[in-house]
């Protein structure tokens, strides 16, 4: 599945997915986080998404499982925190399998700090896979300014990470 196909098919499902997450998690922030995590996971699997007959049902099932994991994780943290048993006190803070999620969170925070213009062109280039000519047409920027802006965005991200 191409980037644009993914954006056309899966991104419009976000509102419905948020509603499901909000119903289960009963928190707007947690629901938005769950939806963000789901989309990040879907993006990495987009090569195998072509065979999905019902994207909505597929996403809802994945989201339900993600919410279940969140609830379980929170319950586990609460249990460990209540038990407060020496070395295990901080075990939940850095679970070993949490590394990719933490890295993704760091990248998201870094993206959030980019100026809107840089974020926009980076999105067009990386996410929408648009050519320089297409971005030039959409933004009205000249080629050199566009290259400079993209380069600055990437450099800033590297610096922030």
């Amino acid at each position: 599945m191409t980037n644009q196909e993914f954006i056309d098919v899966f991104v419009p499902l976000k509102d419905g997915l948020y509603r499901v997450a909000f119903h289960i998690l009963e928190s707007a922030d947690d629901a938005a986080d769950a939806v963000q995590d789901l989309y990040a996971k879907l993006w990495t699997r987009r090569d195998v998404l072509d065979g999905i007959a019902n994207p909505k049902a597929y996403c809802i099932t994945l989201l339900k499982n993600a919410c279940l994991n969140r609830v379980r994780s929170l319950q586990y943290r609460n249990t460990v925190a209540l038990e407060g048993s020496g070395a295990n006190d901080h075990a939940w803070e850095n679970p070993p399998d949490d590394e990719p999620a933490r890295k993704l969170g760091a990248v998201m925070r870094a993206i959030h700090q980019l100026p809107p213009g840089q974020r926009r062109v980076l999105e067009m280039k990386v996410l929408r896979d648009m050519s320089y000519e297409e971005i030039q047409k959409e933004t009205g920027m000249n080629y050199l300014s566009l290259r400079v802006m993209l380069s600055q965005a990437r450099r800033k991200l590297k610096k922030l990470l």
Partner: protein
Amino acid sequence: MKDIGYINRLDDKTLEALADDVNVHVPRDLSAKVNEALLAAALSQEDSVQTAASGRHRYVIPAALSFVCAAAVFASLHFRGYGQPEDTFDDPYLAYAAFEQAFSRVSGKVNDCARISSAADHAIELTSATMNRLKINE
């Protein structure tokens, strides 16, 4: 937050009905948040693909050099008469001396290989650093 039992009992039909319930307010910035998540995933993936690719290339040249060195050692031993060594000795001291001589030659060649491979490693790192710098300036 709903309890695990309740979540497990939610069937597909109920979940789809929840998704279609337009009375639930969706935050305005959800779209931006989703875009951020997708961009982060895309950038992370781009980064991991590049790392994996450079990791693979890192071993191609040393492996090729090692192969060439091994072939050179084999060829030099073969053409200097080690291809058909004397394999029987009446005197055990002569046999031991022949062994010792053969292994010292192999050891020397192996050391040469290690030196060449180490020099190549430095060159690869330099190339990789230059490529990264070019990538940053792109």
